[in-house]
Protein backbone atom coordinates (compact mmCIF):
# COMPACT_ATOMS: atom_id res chain seq x y z
CA UNK A 1 0.00 0.00 0.00
CA UNK A 2 1.27 3.43 -0.83
CA UNK A 3 2.32 5.63 2.03
CA UNK A 4 0.49 8.90 2.40
CA UNK A 5 0.03 12.17 4.10
CA UNK A 6 -3.06 10.97 5.91
CA UNK A 7 -5.73 13.03 7.61
CA UNK A 8 -6.20 11.44 11.02
CA UNK A 9 -8.87 13.81 12.26
CA UNK A 10 -10.18 17.32 11.75
CA UNK A 11 -12.44 19.81 13.45
CA UNK A 12 -13.82 22.93 11.80
CA UNK A 13 -15.82 24.85 14.34
CA UNK A 14 -19.46 25.53 13.52
CA UNK A 15 -19.76 27.43 16.78
CA UNK A 16 -17.37 28.74 19.40
CA UNK A 17 -15.58 26.17 21.50
CA UNK A 18 -13.51 26.43 24.66
CA UNK A 19 -11.14 23.67 23.61
CA UNK A 20 -10.35 21.17 20.88
CA UNK A 21 -9.16 17.65 21.59
CA UNK A 22 -7.52 14.99 19.45
CA UNK A 23 -7.45 11.72 21.37
CA UNK A 24 -6.50 8.11 20.69
CA UNK A 25 -3.88 9.14 18.13
CA UNK A 26 -2.59 5.85 16.72
CA UNK A 27 1.13 5.10 16.68
CA UNK A 28 1.01 3.82 13.11
CA UNK A 29 2.68 6.83 11.50
CA UNK A 30 6.23 8.14 11.62
CA UNK A 31 5.48 11.84 12.03
CA UNK A 32 2.54 14.04 13.00
CA UNK A 33 1.57 17.36 11.46
CA UNK A 34 -0.94 19.62 13.20
CA UNK A 35 -2.30 22.43 11.04
CA UNK A 36 -4.59 24.99 12.59
CA UNK A 37 -6.16 28.27 11.56
CA UNK A 38 -7.47 30.09 14.61
CA UNK A 39 -9.15 33.20 15.91
CA UNK A 40 -10.09 33.52 19.59
CA UNK A 41 -12.53 35.78 21.40
CA UNK A 42 -9.75 37.61 23.22
CA UNK A 43 -10.45 41.35 23.14
CA UNK A 44 -7.08 42.06 21.58
CA UNK A 45 -5.40 41.62 18.25
CA UNK A 46 -3.54 38.45 19.23
CA UNK A 47 -3.69 35.49 21.53
CA UNK A 48 -1.90 32.20 22.04
CA UNK A 49 -3.18 28.70 21.62
CA UNK A 50 -1.88 26.41 24.34
CA UNK A 51 -1.13 22.85 23.31
CA UNK A 52 -0.99 20.11 25.93
CA UNK A 53 0.15 16.61 25.03
CA UNK A 54 -1.02 13.40 26.73
CA UNK A 55 -2.50 15.51 29.52
CA UNK A 56 0.97 16.44 30.73
CA UNK A 57 1.28 19.61 32.79
CA UNK A 58 5.06 19.88 32.77
CA UNK A 59 8.06 19.21 30.55
CA UNK A 60 7.38 21.76 27.81
CA UNK A 61 9.77 24.38 26.44
CA UNK A 62 10.21 26.41 23.29
CA UNK A 63 12.35 28.96 21.47
CA UNK A 64 10.79 31.47 19.09
CA UNK A 65 12.28 33.47 16.25
CA UNK A 66 9.77 35.99 15.00
CA UNK A 67 9.42 39.12 12.98
CA UNK A 68 6.82 41.86 13.03
CA UNK A 69 6.57 44.80 10.71
CA UNK A 70 10.06 46.01 11.53
CA UNK A 71 12.11 43.87 13.92
CA UNK A 72 13.38 40.31 14.27
CA UNK A 73 13.19 39.04 17.85
CA UNK A 74 13.84 35.81 19.71
CA UNK A 75 12.51 34.61 23.04
CA UNK A 76 12.22 31.34 24.88
CA UNK A 77 10.40 29.66 27.73
CA UNK A 78 11.54 26.74 29.85
CA UNK A 79 9.74 24.25 32.08
CA UNK A 80 6.33 25.46 31.04
CA UNK A 81 2.95 23.74 31.30
CA UNK A 82 2.24 23.67 27.56
CA UNK A 83 3.52 24.71 24.16
CA UNK A 84 2.37 28.13 22.99
CA UNK A 85 1.27 28.91 19.44
CA UNK A 86 0.63 32.51 18.32
CA UNK A 87 -2.82 33.10 16.82
CA UNK A 88 -5.26 35.91 16.02
CA UNK A 89 -7.45 37.60 18.62
CA UNK A 90 -10.84 39.13 18.03
CA UNK A 91 -9.81 42.69 17.21
CA UNK A 92 -7.51 41.79 14.37
CA UNK A 93 -8.80 42.45 10.87
CA UNK A 94 -12.22 40.88 10.31
CA UNK A 95 -12.30 37.40 8.87
CA UNK A 96 -8.60 36.79 9.41
CA UNK A 97 -7.35 33.67 11.11
CA UNK A 98 -3.83 32.61 11.97
CA UNK A 99 -1.95 29.98 9.98
CA UNK A 100 0.05 27.49 12.05
CA UNK A 101 1.82 24.21 11.47
CA UNK A 102 3.45 22.03 14.12
CA UNK A 103 5.63 19.16 12.83
CA UNK A 104 6.50 16.38 15.29
CA UNK A 105 8.86 13.66 14.03
CA UNK A 106 9.09 10.21 15.59
CA UNK A 107 6.15 10.98 17.87
CA UNK A 108 5.78 7.39 19.01
CA UNK A 109 9.46 6.95 19.83
CA UNK A 110 10.99 6.66 23.28
CA UNK A 111 13.13 9.80 23.25
CA UNK A 112 12.25 13.40 24.07
CA UNK A 113 10.08 14.99 21.38
CA UNK A 114 11.38 17.98 19.39
CA UNK A 115 9.03 19.77 17.04
CA UNK A 116 9.11 22.71 14.68
CA UNK A 117 6.44 25.36 14.35
CA UNK A 118 5.64 27.86 11.65
CA UNK A 119 3.05 30.52 12.44
CA UNK A 120 1.81 33.60 10.67
CA UNK A 121 -0.60 36.42 11.38
CA UNK A 122 -0.98 38.71 8.40
CA UNK A 123 -3.81 41.21 8.65
CA UNK A 124 -3.11 43.99 6.14
CA UNK A 125 -2.28 46.40 8.94
CA UNK A 126 0.96 47.40 10.59
CA UNK A 127 0.11 45.64 13.82
CA UNK A 128 -0.23 42.78 14.44
CA UNK A 129 1.67 41.06 11.71
CA UNK A 130 3.91 38.25 12.74
CA UNK A 131 5.73 35.33 11.28
CA UNK A 132 7.15 32.82 13.71
CA UNK A 133 9.65 29.98 13.40
CA UNK A 134 9.51 28.02 16.63
CA UNK A 135 11.52 25.18 18.14
CA UNK A 136 9.57 23.11 20.62
CA UNK A 137 10.68 20.38 23.00
CA UNK A 138 8.65 18.01 25.14
CA UNK A 139 10.96 16.46 27.72
CA UNK A 140 9.01 13.25 27.96
CA UNK A 141 9.68 9.83 26.46
CA UNK A 142 6.10 8.55 26.13
CA UNK A 143 4.47 8.11 22.75
CA UNK A 144 2.16 10.97 21.87
CA UNK A 145 -1.47 9.89 21.92
CA UNK A 146 -3.51 13.04 22.52
CA UNK A 147 -3.61 16.81 22.07
CA UNK A 148 -5.73 19.39 23.86
CA UNK A 149 -5.77 22.95 22.52
CA UNK A 150 -7.17 25.93 24.44
CA UNK A 151 -6.96 29.71 24.10
CA UNK A 152 -4.56 31.30 26.57
CA UNK A 153 -6.30 34.64 27.14
CA UNK A 154 -9.62 34.26 25.40
CA UNK A 155 -12.20 31.77 26.57
CA UNK A 156 -13.21 30.39 23.18
CA UNK A 157 -12.00 29.57 19.71
CA UNK A 158 -14.32 31.36 17.29
CA UNK A 159 -16.50 29.85 14.59
CA UNK A 160 -14.59 28.74 11.48
CA UNK A 161 -11.40 28.08 13.41
CA UNK A 162 -10.03 24.86 11.94
CA UNK A 163 -7.86 22.08 13.28
CA UNK A 164 -6.36 19.30 11.13
CA UNK A 165 -4.16 16.47 12.33
CA UNK A 166 -2.18 14.49 9.75
CA UNK A 167 -0.04 11.39 10.03
CA UNK A 168 2.86 10.66 7.71
Amino acid at each position, binding site marked *: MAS*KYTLISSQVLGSSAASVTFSSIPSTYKDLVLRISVRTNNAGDGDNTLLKINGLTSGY*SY*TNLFGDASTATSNNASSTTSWSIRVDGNTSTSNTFSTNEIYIPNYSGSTYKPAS*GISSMENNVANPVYTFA*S*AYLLSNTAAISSFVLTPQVGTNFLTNSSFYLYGI
Partner: protein
Amino acid sequence: MADTATYDLIASQTLASAASSITFSSIAASWTDLRIVFNVTAVSTDNLYVRYNGDTASNYSITELWGDGASTGSLQTSNAAFLYITDKGSITTTPALYAFDIFSYAGSAYKTTLWNIANDRNGSGYSTSGVGLWRSTSAITSVNLYSPGGSNLAAGTTAYLYGIKAA
Protein backbone atom coordinates in the same frame (compact mmCIF):
# COMPACT_ATOMS: atom_id res chain seq x y z
CA MET B 1 -10.70 6.40 -6.62
CA ALA B 2 -7.19 5.13 -7.13
CA ASP B 3 -4.95 4.88 -4.10
CA THR B 4 -2.40 7.35 -5.44
CA ALA B 5 0.30 8.42 -3.04
CA THR B 6 1.55 11.98 -3.18
CA TYR B 7 3.85 11.76 -0.16
CA ASP B 8 6.00 8.65 -0.23
CA LEU B 9 8.56 7.35 2.20
CA ILE B 10 11.50 6.60 -0.12
CA ALA B 11 13.97 5.42 2.52
CA SER B 12 14.74 5.67 6.21
CA GLN B 13 17.74 5.10 8.44
CA THR B 14 18.16 4.72 12.18
CA LEU B 15 21.68 4.69 13.55
CA ALA B 16 22.39 1.66 15.70
CA SER B 17 25.67 3.24 16.80
CA ALA B 18 27.31 6.63 16.51
CA ALA B 19 28.32 7.56 12.98
CA SER B 20 29.71 10.49 11.07
CA SER B 21 27.16 10.56 8.27
CA ILE B 22 23.95 9.33 6.76
CA THR B 23 23.60 8.92 3.02
CA PHE B 24 20.59 8.36 0.80
CA SER B 25 21.63 7.13 -2.61
CA SER B 26 20.03 5.96 -5.86
CA ILE B 27 17.18 8.42 -5.46
CA ALA B 28 14.84 7.98 -8.39
CA ALA B 29 13.51 10.96 -10.33
CA SER B 30 9.94 9.86 -9.68
CA TRP B 31 8.77 12.75 -7.53
CA THR B 32 8.51 16.51 -7.75
CA ASP B 33 10.19 17.46 -4.47
CA LEU B 34 12.11 15.76 -1.69
CA ARG B 35 11.73 16.19 2.05
CA ILE B 36 14.22 14.96 4.64
CA VAL B 37 13.20 14.75 8.29
CA PHE B 38 16.33 14.35 10.38
CA ASN B 39 15.86 13.77 14.11
CA VAL B 40 19.36 13.97 15.49
CA THR B 41 21.16 13.80 18.78
CA ALA B 42 24.84 14.73 18.59
CA VAL B 43 27.70 13.18 20.49
CA SER B 44 29.45 16.54 20.71
CA THR B 45 29.08 20.04 19.40
CA ASP B 46 29.41 20.34 15.67
CA ASN B 47 27.72 21.60 12.58
CA LEU B 48 25.99 19.58 9.92
CA TYR B 49 27.03 19.61 6.29
CA VAL B 50 25.00 18.46 3.31
CA ARG B 51 26.29 17.39 -0.09
CA TYR B 52 24.41 16.35 -3.19
CA ASN B 53 25.64 13.70 -5.63
CA GLY B 54 29.01 13.64 -3.87
CA ASP B 55 29.89 17.03 -5.32
CA THR B 56 32.89 18.47 -3.43
CA ALA B 57 33.37 21.51 -5.65
CA SER B 58 32.57 25.03 -4.48
CA ASN B 59 29.02 25.01 -5.76
CA TYR B 60 27.07 25.62 -2.58
CA SER B 61 25.83 28.74 -0.81
CA ILE B 62 23.48 29.38 2.10
CA THR B 63 21.72 32.12 4.01
CA GLU B 64 20.41 31.45 7.53
CA LEU B 65 18.33 33.36 10.07
CA TRP B 66 18.45 32.25 13.68
CA GLY B 67 17.20 33.13 17.15
CA ASP B 68 18.54 31.85 20.45
CA GLY B 69 15.87 33.10 22.82
CA ALA B 70 17.56 36.43 23.40
CA SER B 71 19.14 37.60 20.19
CA THR B 72 18.82 37.03 16.47
CA GLY B 73 21.28 36.85 13.64
CA SER B 74 21.82 35.99 10.03
CA LEU B 75 24.79 34.45 8.28
CA GLN B 76 25.76 33.67 4.74
CA THR B 77 28.37 31.54 3.04
CA SER B 78 29.10 31.38 -0.66
CA ASN B 79 31.21 29.22 -2.94
CA ALA B 80 31.41 26.52 -0.30
CA ALA B 81 32.01 22.81 -0.81
CA PHE B 82 28.83 21.87 1.07
CA LEU B 83 25.62 23.31 2.44
CA TYR B 84 26.71 24.67 5.80
CA ILE B 85 23.89 23.92 8.25
CA THR B 86 24.85 25.46 11.55
CA ASP B 87 23.42 23.98 14.72
CA LYS B 88 24.45 27.10 16.65
CA GLY B 89 25.68 25.15 19.62
CA SER B 90 25.61 21.80 21.28
CA ILE B 91 22.71 19.42 20.78
CA THR B 92 24.20 16.76 22.97
CA THR B 93 21.41 16.23 25.47
CA THR B 94 18.20 16.59 23.53
CA PRO B 95 17.21 15.61 20.02
CA ALA B 96 16.85 18.33 17.40
CA LEU B 97 14.66 18.33 14.33
CA TYR B 98 16.15 19.28 10.98
CA ALA B 99 13.62 19.39 8.15
CA PHE B 100 14.88 19.95 4.60
CA ASP B 101 12.69 20.64 1.58
CA ILE B 102 14.47 20.18 -1.74
CA PHE B 103 12.50 21.62 -4.62
CA SER B 104 12.43 20.27 -8.21
CA TYR B 105 15.34 18.03 -7.37
CA ALA B 106 15.19 16.22 -10.71
CA GLY B 107 14.94 19.33 -12.85
CA SER B 108 17.63 20.95 -14.96
CA ALA B 109 17.85 24.22 -13.04
CA TYR B 110 19.99 24.96 -9.99
CA LYS B 111 18.61 23.33 -6.82
CA THR B 112 17.11 25.26 -3.92
CA THR B 113 16.74 23.81 -0.43
CA LEU B 114 14.81 25.28 2.48
CA TRP B 115 15.31 24.09 6.04
CA ASN B 116 14.02 24.63 9.55
CA ILE B 117 15.93 23.56 12.64
CA ALA B 118 14.04 23.10 15.90
CA ASN B 119 16.69 22.83 18.59
CA ASP B 120 15.08 23.86 21.87
CA ARG B 121 16.85 22.68 25.03
CA ASN B 122 14.51 23.80 27.82
CA GLY B 123 15.90 27.23 28.52
CA SER B 124 18.39 27.52 25.72
CA GLY B 125 18.64 26.43 22.12
CA TYR B 126 17.81 27.80 18.73
CA SER B 127 15.20 28.17 16.07
CA THR B 128 16.79 28.47 12.65
CA SER B 129 15.50 28.91 9.12
CA GLY B 130 17.72 28.72 6.08
CA VAL B 131 17.91 28.54 2.34
CA GLY B 132 20.62 26.89 0.29
CA LEU B 133 21.57 26.78 -3.36
CA TRP B 134 23.43 24.04 -5.16
CA ARG B 135 24.64 25.39 -8.49
CA SER B 136 24.21 22.25 -10.53
CA THR B 137 21.83 21.34 -13.30
CA SER B 138 22.10 17.62 -12.54
CA ALA B 139 19.22 15.74 -10.97
CA ILE B 140 19.88 14.96 -7.32
CA THR B 141 20.40 11.23 -6.92
CA SER B 142 22.15 11.15 -3.54
CA VAL B 143 22.15 13.19 -0.36
CA ASN B 144 24.91 12.99 2.24
CA LEU B 145 24.26 14.45 5.71
CA TYR B 146 27.48 14.49 7.67
CA SER B 147 29.22 15.83 10.69
CA PRO B 148 32.65 17.20 9.80
CA GLY B 149 34.02 16.45 13.25
CA GLY B 150 33.83 12.68 12.99
CA SER B 151 31.48 10.14 14.55
CA ASN B 152 29.18 12.76 15.91
CA LEU B 153 25.68 11.53 15.16
CA ALA B 154 24.50 9.53 18.15
CA ALA B 155 22.85 6.12 18.12
CA GLY B 156 19.12 6.49 17.72
CA THR B 157 19.42 9.33 15.23
CA THR B 158 16.79 8.88 12.53
CA ALA B 159 16.52 10.19 8.99
CA TYR B 160 13.52 9.83 6.71
CA LEU B 161 13.55 10.67 3.02
CA TYR B 162 10.16 11.46 1.50
CA GLY B 163 9.18 12.07 -2.09
CA ILE B 164 6.37 14.49 -2.85
CA LYS B 165 4.44 14.37 -6.08
CA ALA B 166 2.61 17.29 -7.57
CA ALA B 167 -1.11 16.89 -7.08
